[in-house]
Protein backbone atom coordinates (compact mmCIF):
# COMPACT_ATOMS: atom_id res chain seq x y z
CA UNK A 1 0.00 0.00 0.00
CA UNK A 2 2.82 2.40 0.92
CA UNK A 3 4.50 1.84 -2.44
CA UNK A 4 1.34 2.57 -4.43
CA UNK A 5 0.56 5.59 -2.28
CA UNK A 6 4.07 7.01 -2.64
CA UNK A 7 4.12 6.30 -6.36
CA UNK A 8 0.82 8.04 -7.03
CA UNK A 9 1.77 11.04 -4.90
CA UNK A 10 5.04 11.33 -6.77
CA UNK A 11 3.37 10.92 -10.15
CA UNK A 12 0.77 13.58 -9.35
CA UNK A 13 3.50 15.96 -8.17
CA UNK A 14 5.59 15.38 -11.27
CA UNK A 15 2.61 15.86 -13.57
CA UNK A 16 1.52 18.95 -11.64
CA UNK A 17 4.94 20.57 -11.79
CA UNK A 18 5.35 19.73 -15.49
CA UNK A 19 1.96 21.21 -16.36
CA UNK A 20 2.39 24.32 -14.23
CA UNK A 21 5.58 25.09 -16.14
CA UNK A 22 3.65 25.20 -19.45
CA UNK A 23 2.99 28.42 -21.26
CA UNK A 24 -0.79 28.43 -21.66
CA UNK A 25 -3.00 29.26 -18.74
CA UNK A 26 -5.29 26.22 -18.94
CA UNK A 27 -2.52 23.58 -18.54
CA UNK A 28 -1.11 25.71 -15.74
CA UNK A 29 -4.43 25.72 -13.90
CA UNK A 30 -4.74 21.95 -14.35
CA UNK A 31 -1.15 21.57 -13.18
CA UNK A 32 -1.85 23.55 -10.02
CA UNK A 33 -4.92 21.44 -9.39
CA UNK A 34 -2.90 18.23 -9.73
CA UNK A 35 -0.24 19.68 -7.47
CA UNK A 36 -2.82 20.44 -4.80
CA UNK A 37 -4.17 16.85 -5.07
CA UNK A 38 -0.63 15.59 -4.55
CA UNK A 39 -0.23 17.91 -1.57
CA UNK A 40 -3.43 16.65 -0.02
CA UNK A 41 -2.35 13.01 -0.37
CA UNK A 42 1.05 13.87 1.01
CA UNK A 43 -0.37 15.68 4.04
CA UNK A 44 -2.69 12.76 4.66
CA UNK A 45 0.24 10.36 4.71
CA UNK A 46 2.20 12.49 7.18
CA UNK A 47 0.20 10.85 9.98
CA UNK A 48 1.32 7.42 8.68
CA UNK A 49 -1.00 5.12 6.77
CA UNK A 50 -3.31 2.98 8.91
CA UNK A 51 -5.87 0.47 7.69
CA UNK A 52 -9.27 0.32 9.39
CA UNK A 53 -8.22 2.82 12.03
CA UNK A 54 -10.69 5.32 13.44
CA UNK A 55 -9.80 8.88 14.26
CA UNK A 56 -12.20 8.95 17.23
CA UNK A 57 -11.38 7.32 20.57
CA UNK A 58 -13.38 4.29 21.67
CA UNK A 59 -14.65 3.23 18.27
CA UNK A 60 -12.05 0.74 17.07
CA UNK A 61 -9.02 -1.23 18.10
CA UNK A 62 -6.46 0.70 16.08
CA UNK A 63 -6.32 4.43 15.85
CA UNK A 64 -5.09 6.83 13.26
CA UNK A 65 -3.72 10.32 13.76
CA UNK A 66 -6.63 12.79 13.39
CA UNK A 67 -4.51 15.91 12.94
CA UNK A 68 -3.46 15.27 9.31
CA UNK A 69 -7.12 14.66 8.43
CA UNK A 70 -8.00 18.07 9.82
CA UNK A 71 -5.07 19.61 7.96
CA UNK A 72 -6.12 17.96 4.71
CA UNK A 73 -9.67 19.26 5.10
CA UNK A 74 -8.37 22.79 5.55
CA UNK A 75 -5.99 22.40 2.63
CA UNK A 76 -8.76 21.05 0.38
CA UNK A 77 -11.06 23.97 1.17
CA UNK A 78 -8.35 26.55 0.62
CA UNK A 79 -7.10 24.81 -2.52
CA UNK A 80 -10.61 24.70 -3.93
CA UNK A 81 -11.16 28.42 -3.42
CA UNK A 82 -7.78 29.24 -4.92
CA UNK A 83 -8.40 27.05 -7.97
CA UNK A 84 -11.73 28.77 -8.55
CA UNK A 85 -10.03 32.14 -8.29
CA UNK A 86 -7.20 31.32 -10.67
CA UNK A 87 -9.68 29.86 -13.17
CA UNK A 88 -11.71 33.07 -13.22
CA UNK A 89 -8.52 35.10 -13.44
CA UNK A 90 -7.33 33.01 -16.40
CA UNK A 91 -10.62 33.65 -18.20
CA UNK A 92 -10.40 37.35 -17.40
CA UNK A 93 -6.86 37.47 -18.71
CA UNK A 94 -7.94 35.66 -21.88
CA UNK A 95 -10.59 38.33 -22.36
CA UNK A 96 -8.42 41.32 -21.42
CA UNK A 97 -5.26 40.37 -23.24
CA UNK A 98 -6.66 38.51 -26.22
CA UNK A 99 -4.70 35.29 -25.71
CA UNK A 100 -4.33 32.56 -23.13
CA UNK A 101 -0.58 32.73 -22.59
CA UNK A 102 0.42 33.27 -18.96
CA UNK A 103 2.65 36.17 -19.98
CA UNK A 104 -0.29 37.79 -21.73
CA UNK A 105 1.56 37.70 -25.05
CA UNK A 106 2.60 34.96 -27.40
CA UNK A 107 6.31 34.25 -27.57
CA UNK A 108 6.42 35.16 -31.27
CA UNK A 109 4.11 38.03 -32.12
CA UNK A 110 2.31 37.57 -35.45
CA UNK A 111 3.77 40.88 -36.73
CA UNK A 112 7.30 39.80 -35.99
CA UNK A 113 6.72 36.56 -37.82
CA UNK A 114 5.97 38.41 -41.03
CA UNK A 115 9.21 40.36 -40.79
Amino acid sequence: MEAIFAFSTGLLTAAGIFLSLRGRSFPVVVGITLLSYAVNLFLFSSGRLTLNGAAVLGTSETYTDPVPQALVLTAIVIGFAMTAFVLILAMRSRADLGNDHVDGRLSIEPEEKKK
Partner: protein
Amino acid sequence: MIQQHLPLLPVVFPLIVGALLLLPPLTNSLIKQRNLTLVASLTLIVLGVWMVQLASQDSIQLYYLGDWKPPFGILFVVDRISALMVLLSSILMLGALLYATAGDDRTGMFFYPLFLFQIAGINGAFLTGDLFNLFVFFEVLLIASYSLLIHGGGKQRTQAAMHYVILNLVGSAFFLFALGILYGTLGTLNMADMAARIHHLHLDEQALVKAGGLLLLVVFGLKSALLPLHFWLPRTYSSASAPVAALFAIMTKVGVYSILRVHTLIFGPEAGDLANLIQPWLWPMSLLTLTLGAIGALASPGLKMLASNLIIISVGTLLLAAAIATPQAIAAALYYLVHSTLIAGALFLLADAIGEQRGKPGDRFVAARQVQQPVLLGGAFFIAALSLAGMPPFSGFVGKLMLLQASSAPHLASWVWPVLLISSLAAIIALTRAGTSLFWRSSGKNSATQPAHILKLSGVWLLLLCSPLMVIFAGSITEYTHLASEQLFNIQPTIELILQQGAN
Protein backbone atom coordinates in the same frame (compact mmCIF):
# COMPACT_ATOMS: atom_id res chain seq x y z
CA MET B 1 -11.52 41.49 30.11
CA ILE B 2 -10.47 43.12 26.88
CA GLN B 3 -6.82 42.75 27.81
CA GLN B 4 -7.34 39.03 28.17
CA HIS B 5 -8.54 38.79 24.57
CA LEU B 6 -6.17 41.43 23.24
CA PRO B 7 -3.94 39.03 21.23
CA LEU B 8 -6.92 37.99 19.13
CA LEU B 9 -8.40 41.44 18.52
CA PRO B 10 -6.07 42.65 15.71
CA VAL B 11 -7.24 39.63 13.68
CA VAL B 12 -10.89 39.34 14.61
CA PHE B 13 -11.72 43.03 14.69
CA PRO B 14 -10.87 43.78 11.03
CA LEU B 15 -12.57 40.54 9.98
CA ILE B 16 -15.80 41.57 11.71
CA VAL B 17 -15.69 45.13 10.40
CA GLY B 18 -14.92 43.82 6.91
CA ALA B 19 -17.92 41.49 7.08
CA LEU B 20 -20.14 44.32 8.37
CA LEU B 21 -19.12 46.42 5.38
CA LEU B 22 -20.60 43.75 3.10
CA LEU B 23 -24.03 44.03 4.73
CA PRO B 24 -26.82 46.21 3.30
CA PRO B 25 -26.78 49.45 5.30
CA LEU B 26 -23.09 49.93 4.66
CA THR B 27 -22.44 48.23 1.36
CA ASN B 28 -24.29 50.85 -0.67
CA SER B 29 -22.73 53.93 0.87
CA LEU B 30 -19.09 54.66 0.11
CA ILE B 31 -19.02 57.51 2.63
CA LYS B 32 -20.11 55.25 5.49
CA GLN B 33 -17.61 52.59 4.40
CA ARG B 34 -14.81 55.15 4.39
CA ASN B 35 -15.67 56.47 7.83
CA LEU B 36 -16.07 53.07 9.41
CA THR B 37 -12.82 51.79 7.91
CA LEU B 38 -10.92 54.85 9.10
CA VAL B 39 -12.36 54.40 12.60
CA ALA B 40 -11.38 50.73 12.43
CA SER B 41 -7.82 51.57 11.43
CA LEU B 42 -7.51 54.12 14.27
CA THR B 43 -8.78 51.44 16.65
CA LEU B 44 -6.17 49.05 15.28
CA ILE B 45 -3.45 51.60 15.97
CA VAL B 46 -4.71 51.93 19.57
CA LEU B 47 -4.66 48.13 19.89
CA GLY B 48 -1.15 48.05 18.42
CA VAL B 49 0.13 50.67 20.86
CA TRP B 50 -1.48 48.79 23.72
CA MET B 51 0.16 45.54 22.64
CA VAL B 52 3.56 47.18 22.33
CA GLN B 53 3.12 48.69 25.77
CA LEU B 54 2.21 45.33 27.29
CA ALA B 55 5.02 43.57 25.44
CA SER B 56 7.60 46.08 26.59
CA GLN B 57 6.93 45.03 30.18
CA ASP B 58 8.77 41.82 29.30
CA SER B 59 5.73 39.63 29.47
CA ILE B 60 4.82 37.25 26.66
CA GLN B 61 1.08 37.12 26.25
CA LEU B 62 -0.41 33.80 25.18
CA TYR B 63 -3.90 33.23 23.90
CA TYR B 64 -5.34 29.76 23.47
CA LEU B 65 -8.12 29.53 20.93
CA GLY B 66 -11.02 27.57 22.34
CA ASP B 67 -8.92 27.10 25.49
CA TRP B 68 -7.15 24.13 23.92
CA LYS B 69 -3.81 24.10 25.65
CA PRO B 70 -0.57 23.79 23.69
CA PRO B 71 0.83 21.70 22.14
CA PHE B 72 -2.63 20.49 21.04
CA GLY B 73 -4.49 23.69 20.27
CA ILE B 74 -3.63 26.76 18.25
CA LEU B 75 -2.16 29.60 20.20
CA PHE B 76 -1.39 33.25 19.57
CA VAL B 77 1.83 34.67 20.95
CA VAL B 78 2.39 38.37 21.57
CA ASP B 79 6.01 39.15 22.23
CA ARG B 80 7.94 42.28 21.44
CA ILE B 81 8.45 41.56 17.74
CA SER B 82 4.90 40.55 16.92
CA ALA B 83 3.48 43.54 18.83
CA LEU B 84 5.80 45.86 16.92
CA MET B 85 4.78 44.32 13.58
CA VAL B 86 1.08 44.68 14.37
CA LEU B 87 1.57 48.36 15.23
CA LEU B 88 3.56 48.83 12.02
CA SER B 89 0.87 47.25 9.85
CA SER B 90 -1.86 49.43 11.36
CA ILE B 91 0.10 52.66 10.85
CA LEU B 92 0.83 51.73 7.24
CA MET B 93 -2.84 50.84 6.81
CA LEU B 94 -3.95 54.28 8.02
CA GLY B 95 -1.63 56.03 5.56
CA ALA B 96 -2.82 53.92 2.63
CA LEU B 97 -6.47 54.32 3.64
CA LEU B 98 -6.23 58.12 3.86
CA TYR B 99 -4.87 58.10 0.33
CA ALA B 100 -7.55 55.72 -0.92
CA THR B 101 -10.43 57.78 0.52
CA ALA B 102 -9.54 60.56 -1.91
CA GLY B 103 -11.01 58.59 -4.81
CA ASP B 104 -9.01 55.43 -5.56
CA ASP B 105 -11.66 53.39 -3.74
CA ARG B 106 -14.21 54.21 -6.45
CA THR B 107 -12.50 52.29 -9.22
CA GLY B 108 -13.67 48.86 -8.14
CA MET B 109 -15.95 46.88 -5.88
CA PHE B 110 -15.40 45.89 -2.24
CA PHE B 111 -12.21 47.85 -1.73
CA TYR B 112 -12.56 48.35 2.01
CA PRO B 113 -13.69 44.83 2.98
CA LEU B 114 -10.76 43.35 1.04
CA PHE B 115 -8.41 45.85 2.62
CA LEU B 116 -9.56 44.84 6.10
CA PHE B 117 -9.38 41.12 5.30
CA GLN B 118 -5.82 41.58 4.15
CA ILE B 119 -4.92 43.38 7.37
CA ALA B 120 -6.55 40.55 9.34
CA GLY B 121 -4.40 38.03 7.46
CA ILE B 122 -1.22 40.05 7.95
CA ASN B 123 -1.81 40.53 11.68
CA GLY B 124 -2.68 36.85 12.06
CA ALA B 125 0.58 35.83 10.39
CA PHE B 126 2.46 38.04 12.85
CA LEU B 127 0.69 36.74 15.94
CA THR B 128 0.22 33.02 15.44
CA GLY B 129 2.37 30.48 17.24
CA ASP B 130 1.34 27.53 15.11
CA LEU B 131 2.93 26.68 11.80
CA PHE B 132 -0.23 25.45 10.08
CA ASN B 133 -2.11 28.48 11.32
CA LEU B 134 0.63 30.57 9.72
CA PHE B 135 -0.18 28.87 6.42
CA VAL B 136 -3.89 29.65 6.86
CA PHE B 137 -3.19 33.33 7.53
CA PHE B 138 -0.84 33.42 4.55
CA GLU B 139 -3.75 32.23 2.43
CA VAL B 140 -6.11 34.80 3.97
CA LEU B 141 -3.78 37.66 3.20
CA LEU B 142 -2.97 36.25 -0.24
CA ILE B 143 -6.52 35.84 -1.44
CA ALA B 144 -7.31 39.39 -0.33
CA SER B 145 -4.17 40.59 -2.07
CA TYR B 146 -5.08 38.81 -5.33
CA SER B 147 -8.34 40.71 -5.47
CA LEU B 148 -6.80 44.00 -4.35
CA LEU B 149 -4.10 43.69 -6.99
CA ILE B 150 -6.60 43.70 -9.85
CA HIS B 151 -8.64 46.43 -8.14
CA GLY B 152 -9.29 49.03 -10.79
CA GLY B 153 -8.82 46.64 -13.69
CA GLY B 154 -6.71 47.11 -16.79
CA LYS B 155 -4.50 44.92 -18.93
CA GLN B 156 -1.31 45.46 -16.98
CA ARG B 157 -2.91 44.47 -13.69
CA THR B 158 -4.44 41.29 -15.10
CA GLN B 159 -1.10 40.34 -16.59
CA ALA B 160 0.76 40.98 -13.31
CA ALA B 161 -1.94 39.26 -11.27
CA MET B 162 -1.69 36.12 -13.41
CA HIS B 163 2.00 35.69 -12.53
CA TYR B 164 1.49 36.67 -8.92
CA VAL B 165 -1.41 34.28 -8.32
CA ILE B 166 0.16 31.28 -10.06
CA LEU B 167 3.50 31.74 -8.31
CA ASN B 168 1.87 32.04 -4.93
CA LEU B 169 -0.34 29.00 -5.51
CA VAL B 170 2.73 26.92 -6.26
CA GLY B 171 4.34 28.51 -3.19
CA SER B 172 1.37 27.44 -1.06
CA ALA B 173 1.71 23.87 -2.34
CA PHE B 174 5.38 23.92 -1.29
CA PHE B 175 4.37 25.28 2.12
CA LEU B 176 2.02 22.33 2.60
CA PHE B 177 4.70 19.85 1.51
CA ALA B 178 7.03 21.36 4.10
CA LEU B 179 4.33 21.16 6.78
CA GLY B 180 3.63 17.52 5.90
CA ILE B 181 7.31 16.64 6.21
CA LEU B 182 7.69 18.48 9.50
CA TYR B 183 4.53 17.03 11.00
CA GLY B 184 5.47 13.54 9.86
CA THR B 185 8.87 13.74 11.56
CA LEU B 186 8.37 16.05 14.53
CA GLY B 187 4.76 15.12 15.25
CA THR B 188 3.64 18.61 16.11
CA LEU B 189 2.98 21.95 14.44
CA ASN B 190 3.23 24.18 17.47
CA MET B 191 6.40 26.19 16.87
CA ALA B 192 7.61 26.06 20.47
CA ASP B 193 6.96 22.33 20.67
CA MET B 194 8.79 21.80 17.37
CA ALA B 195 11.77 23.72 18.73
CA ALA B 196 11.76 21.48 21.81
CA ARG B 197 11.43 18.23 19.85
CA ILE B 198 14.03 18.95 17.21
CA HIS B 199 16.71 17.76 19.66
CA HIS B 200 15.21 14.29 19.92
CA LEU B 201 15.37 13.32 16.25
CA HIS B 202 16.80 10.13 14.85
CA LEU B 203 19.70 10.59 12.49
CA ASP B 204 17.71 9.34 9.50
CA GLU B 205 14.90 11.78 10.24
CA GLN B 206 17.25 14.74 10.40
CA ALA B 207 17.66 14.79 6.64
CA LEU B 208 13.89 14.96 6.22
CA VAL B 209 13.51 17.79 8.73
CA LYS B 210 16.33 19.59 7.00
CA ALA B 211 14.47 19.30 3.69
CA GLY B 212 11.33 20.62 5.38
CA GLY B 213 13.17 23.58 6.87
CA LEU B 214 14.73 24.47 3.54
CA LEU B 215 11.37 24.14 1.77
CA LEU B 216 10.04 26.66 4.27
CA LEU B 217 12.90 28.96 3.29
CA VAL B 218 11.81 28.65 -0.36
CA VAL B 219 8.23 29.58 0.58
CA PHE B 220 9.18 32.52 2.77
CA GLY B 221 11.79 33.55 0.22
CA LEU B 222 9.06 33.70 -2.42
CA LYS B 223 6.92 35.92 -0.16
CA SER B 224 9.82 38.17 0.75
CA ALA B 225 11.34 38.29 -2.77
CA LEU B 226 14.66 36.62 -2.05
CA LEU B 227 16.91 36.47 -5.11
CA PRO B 228 15.87 33.73 -7.50
CA LEU B 229 12.25 34.16 -6.43
CA HIS B 230 11.92 37.93 -6.74
CA PHE B 231 11.00 38.31 -10.40
CA TRP B 232 7.31 38.78 -9.70
CA LEU B 233 7.79 41.76 -7.42
CA PRO B 234 8.66 44.79 -9.57
CA ARG B 235 5.88 44.25 -12.06
CA THR B 236 3.25 43.34 -9.48
CA TYR B 237 3.95 46.27 -7.20
CA SER B 238 4.33 48.82 -9.96
CA SER B 239 1.07 47.85 -11.64
CA ALA B 240 -1.07 47.81 -8.47
CA SER B 241 -3.07 50.92 -7.60
CA ALA B 242 -1.28 53.27 -5.22
CA PRO B 243 -2.91 52.46 -1.85
CA VAL B 244 -2.71 48.74 -2.62
CA ALA B 245 0.97 48.98 -3.52
CA ALA B 246 1.58 50.90 -0.29
CA LEU B 247 -0.11 48.15 1.70
CA PHE B 248 1.86 45.52 -0.22
CA ALA B 249 5.03 47.14 1.14
CA ILE B 250 4.45 45.10 4.30
CA MET B 251 3.79 41.83 2.46
CA THR B 252 7.47 41.18 1.78
CA LYS B 253 8.08 41.91 5.44
CA VAL B 254 5.67 39.13 6.39
CA GLY B 255 8.06 36.77 4.61
CA VAL B 256 11.08 38.29 6.36
CA TYR B 257 9.29 38.07 9.71
CA SER B 258 8.45 34.41 9.10
CA ILE B 259 12.08 33.64 8.29
CA LEU B 260 13.19 35.41 11.46
CA ARG B 261 10.58 33.66 13.57
CA VAL B 262 10.67 30.11 12.23
CA HIS B 263 14.34 29.83 11.41
CA THR B 264 15.41 31.36 14.72
CA LEU B 265 12.99 29.51 16.96
CA ILE B 266 12.99 26.09 15.32
CA PHE B 267 16.16 25.98 13.22
CA GLY B 268 18.09 28.56 15.21
CA PRO B 269 21.45 28.42 16.97
CA GLU B 270 20.14 26.01 19.62
CA ALA B 271 18.74 23.37 17.28
CA GLY B 272 21.53 20.85 17.83
CA ASP B 273 22.65 19.21 14.59
CA LEU B 274 20.33 21.36 12.53
CA ALA B 275 21.53 24.64 14.05
CA ASN B 276 21.66 27.64 11.70
CA LEU B 277 20.18 25.60 8.89
CA ILE B 278 19.60 28.41 6.42
CA GLN B 279 22.63 30.62 7.04
CA PRO B 280 24.80 29.07 4.28
CA TRP B 281 21.98 29.72 1.79
CA LEU B 282 20.96 33.11 3.10
CA TRP B 283 24.43 34.63 2.89
CA PRO B 284 25.00 34.52 -0.90
CA MET B 285 21.31 34.96 -1.71
CA SER B 286 20.84 38.10 0.36
CA LEU B 287 24.03 39.67 -0.99
CA LEU B 288 22.95 38.91 -4.56
CA THR B 289 19.44 40.21 -3.83
CA LEU B 290 20.95 43.50 -2.71
CA THR B 291 23.12 43.68 -5.82
CA LEU B 292 20.30 42.86 -8.17
CA GLY B 293 17.97 45.32 -6.44
CA ALA B 294 20.60 48.03 -6.91
CA ILE B 295 20.98 47.20 -10.61
CA GLY B 296 17.20 47.18 -10.98
CA ALA B 297 16.95 50.55 -9.26
CA LEU B 298 19.47 52.04 -11.68
CA ALA B 299 17.58 50.61 -14.66
CA SER B 300 14.07 51.63 -13.56
CA PRO B 301 12.14 53.61 -16.14
CA GLY B 302 9.55 55.01 -13.71
CA LEU B 303 9.09 55.97 -10.08
CA LYS B 304 6.82 53.04 -9.17
CA MET B 305 9.31 50.58 -10.66
CA LEU B 306 12.08 52.34 -8.77
CA ALA B 307 10.12 52.05 -5.52
CA SER B 308 9.62 48.32 -6.20
CA ASN B 309 13.34 47.84 -6.72
CA LEU B 310 14.07 49.79 -3.55
CA ILE B 311 11.84 47.28 -1.76
CA ILE B 312 14.05 44.50 -3.14
CA ILE B 313 17.09 46.38 -1.79
CA SER B 314 15.46 46.66 1.63
CA VAL B 315 14.56 42.95 1.61
CA GLY B 316 18.18 42.14 0.73
CA THR B 317 19.36 44.29 3.62
CA LEU B 318 16.96 42.67 6.07
CA LEU B 319 17.87 39.14 5.01
CA LEU B 320 21.54 40.03 5.21
CA ALA B 321 20.93 40.85 8.86
CA ALA B 322 19.08 37.55 9.22
CA ALA B 323 22.13 35.82 7.72
CA ILE B 324 24.46 37.51 10.22
CA ALA B 325 22.03 36.26 12.89
CA THR B 326 23.36 38.01 15.96
CA PRO B 327 20.96 39.79 18.35
CA GLN B 328 22.63 43.06 17.45
CA ALA B 329 22.08 42.57 13.70
CA ILE B 330 18.45 41.56 14.19
CA ALA B 331 17.88 44.63 16.38
CA ALA B 332 19.21 46.79 13.56
CA ALA B 333 17.09 44.87 11.07
CA LEU B 334 13.90 45.45 13.07
CA TYR B 335 14.53 49.19 13.16
CA TYR B 336 15.31 49.17 9.44
CA LEU B 337 12.23 47.04 8.73
CA VAL B 338 9.86 49.56 10.34
CA HIS B 339 11.53 52.44 8.55
CA SER B 340 11.69 50.83 5.11
CA THR B 341 8.08 49.62 5.21
CA LEU B 342 6.66 53.04 6.06
CA ILE B 343 8.81 55.04 3.67
CA ALA B 344 8.42 52.60 0.77
CA GLY B 345 4.65 52.81 1.31
CA ALA B 346 4.88 56.60 1.23
CA LEU B 347 6.95 56.49 -1.97
CA PHE B 348 4.29 54.38 -3.76
CA LEU B 349 1.59 56.88 -2.76
CA LEU B 350 3.80 59.77 -3.77
CA ALA B 351 4.61 58.21 -7.16
CA ASP B 352 0.88 58.08 -7.91
CA ALA B 353 0.28 61.66 -6.75
CA ILE B 354 3.16 62.95 -8.88
CA GLY B 355 2.10 60.85 -11.86
CA GLU B 356 -1.41 62.30 -11.78
CA GLN B 357 -0.12 65.85 -12.09
CA ARG B 358 2.28 65.14 -14.93
CA GLY B 359 -0.37 64.12 -17.42
CA LYS B 360 0.12 61.28 -19.85
CA PRO B 361 3.75 60.26 -19.08
CA GLY B 362 2.72 59.62 -15.48
CA ASP B 363 5.57 58.57 -13.25
CA ARG B 364 7.97 57.72 -16.08
CA PHE B 365 11.28 59.59 -16.14
CA VAL B 366 10.67 61.64 -19.28
CA ALA B 367 10.00 65.30 -19.88
CA ALA B 368 6.39 66.18 -19.13
CA ARG B 369 4.20 68.99 -17.86
CA GLN B 370 5.28 70.69 -14.68
CA VAL B 371 3.98 69.33 -11.43
CA GLN B 372 1.36 71.68 -10.06
CA GLN B 373 2.51 71.56 -6.44
CA PRO B 374 6.30 71.40 -6.76
CA VAL B 375 6.98 72.40 -3.15
CA LEU B 376 4.61 70.01 -1.41
CA LEU B 377 5.29 66.99 -3.64
CA GLY B 378 8.95 67.82 -4.22
CA GLY B 379 9.54 68.24 -0.50
CA ALA B 380 7.86 64.93 0.19
CA PHE B 381 9.93 63.23 -2.50
CA PHE B 382 13.10 64.79 -1.07
CA ILE B 383 12.41 63.41 2.41
CA ALA B 384 11.43 59.99 1.07
CA ALA B 385 14.53 59.81 -1.15
CA LEU B 386 16.97 60.87 1.56
CA SER B 387 15.36 58.48 3.98
CA LEU B 388 15.37 55.48 1.64
CA ALA B 389 18.91 56.10 0.44
CA GLY B 390 20.05 56.19 4.06
CA MET B 391 21.27 59.78 4.31
CA PRO B 392 21.26 61.70 7.60
CA PRO B 393 19.18 63.13 9.28
CA PHE B 394 16.49 60.55 8.44
CA SER B 395 15.70 57.10 9.73
CA GLY B 396 17.35 55.12 6.93
CA PHE B 397 20.69 56.48 8.08
CA VAL B 398 20.18 55.25 11.65
CA GLY B 399 19.05 51.82 10.47
CA LYS B 400 21.95 51.31 8.08
CA LEU B 401 24.44 52.65 10.62
CA MET B 402 23.21 50.15 13.20
CA LEU B 403 23.55 47.36 10.67
CA LEU B 404 27.08 48.42 9.72
CA GLN B 405 28.00 48.50 13.41
CA ALA B 406 26.52 45.05 13.91
CA SER B 407 28.67 43.68 11.09
CA SER B 408 31.91 45.45 12.01
CA ALA B 409 33.86 42.26 12.70
CA PRO B 410 36.47 42.01 9.92
CA HIS B 411 35.27 38.74 8.42
CA LEU B 412 31.73 40.13 8.17
CA ALA B 413 32.60 43.66 7.19
CA SER B 414 34.57 42.59 4.13
CA TRP B 415 31.39 41.07 2.67
CA VAL B 416 28.64 43.21 4.10
CA TRP B 417 30.03 46.72 3.96
CA PRO B 418 30.91 47.00 0.25
CA VAL B 419 27.61 45.51 -0.93
CA LEU B 420 25.51 47.54 1.49
CA LEU B 421 27.30 50.82 0.79
CA ILE B 422 27.44 50.37 -2.98
CA SER B 423 23.74 49.51 -3.09
CA SER B 424 23.05 52.69 -1.09
CA LEU B 425 25.10 54.64 -3.61
CA ALA B 426 23.09 53.09 -6.43
CA ALA B 427 19.89 54.07 -4.63
CA ILE B 428 21.14 57.66 -4.26
CA ILE B 429 22.02 57.86 -7.97
CA ALA B 430 18.69 56.37 -9.05
CA LEU B 431 16.68 58.63 -6.74
CA THR B 432 18.61 61.72 -7.82
CA ARG B 433 17.91 60.94 -11.44
CA ALA B 434 14.28 60.34 -10.60
CA GLY B 435 13.95 63.66 -8.76
CA THR B 436 15.64 65.74 -11.43
CA SER B 437 13.63 64.29 -14.29
CA LEU B 438 10.32 64.33 -12.43
CA PHE B 439 10.49 67.88 -11.13
CA TRP B 440 12.93 69.79 -13.33
CA ARG B 441 12.67 68.35 -16.84
CA SER B 442 9.41 70.01 -17.72
CA SER B 443 7.95 70.82 -21.07
CA GLY B 444 5.37 73.53 -20.69
CA LYS B 445 3.23 74.81 -17.86
CA ASN B 446 0.67 72.75 -16.08
CA SER B 447 -2.83 74.06 -16.35
CA ALA B 448 -5.17 71.15 -16.82
CA THR B 449 -4.85 68.98 -13.73
CA GLN B 450 -6.30 69.39 -10.27
CA PRO B 451 -4.05 69.92 -7.25
CA ALA B 452 -3.65 66.77 -5.16
CA HIS B 453 -6.51 66.04 -2.79
CA ILE B 454 -5.81 67.02 0.81
CA LEU B 455 -6.47 63.47 1.99
CA LYS B 456 -3.90 62.10 -0.46
CA LEU B 457 -1.28 64.52 0.81
CA SER B 458 -2.13 63.74 4.41
CA GLY B 459 -1.67 60.01 3.72
CA VAL B 460 1.75 60.62 2.19
CA TRP B 461 2.89 63.02 4.88
CA LEU B 462 1.62 60.81 7.70
CA LEU B 463 3.90 58.00 6.55
CA LEU B 464 6.80 60.35 5.82
CA LEU B 465 6.63 62.02 9.22
CA CYS B 466 7.35 58.66 10.80
CA SER B 467 10.91 58.95 9.45
CA PRO B 468 11.96 62.05 11.48
CA LEU B 469 9.92 60.75 14.43
CA MET B 470 11.87 57.49 14.30
CA VAL B 471 15.07 59.54 14.50
CA ILE B 472 13.87 61.71 17.38
CA PHE B 473 12.74 58.68 19.37
CA ALA B 474 15.57 56.50 18.07
CA GLY B 475 16.81 55.90 21.61
CA SER B 476 13.68 54.24 22.90
CA ILE B 477 12.94 52.46 19.60
CA THR B 478 16.39 50.91 19.37
CA GLU B 479 16.19 49.91 23.02
CA TYR B 480 12.90 48.18 22.22
CA THR B 481 14.28 46.42 19.14
CA HIS B 482 17.39 45.30 21.06
CA LEU B 483 15.25 43.74 23.77
CA ALA B 484 12.99 42.27 21.09
CA SER B 485 15.84 40.53 19.30
CA GLU B 486 17.24 39.26 22.59
CA GLN B 487 13.81 37.84 23.32
CA LEU B 488 13.80 36.24 19.86
CA PHE B 489 17.16 34.55 20.39
CA ASN B 490 16.60 33.59 24.02
CA ILE B 491 14.24 30.79 23.07
CA GLN B 492 14.34 28.53 26.12
CA PRO B 493 12.14 30.70 28.40
CA THR B 494 9.59 31.09 25.58
CA ILE B 495 9.43 27.35 24.94
CA GLU B 496 9.15 26.58 28.64
CA LEU B 497 6.46 29.21 29.14
CA ILE B 498 4.36 27.87 26.27
CA LEU B 499 4.75 24.18 27.04
CA GLN B 500 4.37 24.52 30.82
CA GLN B 501 1.14 26.43 30.37
CA GLY B 502 -0.02 23.47 28.35
CA ALA B 503 0.93 20.98 31.03
CA ASN B 504 -1.15 22.78 33.67
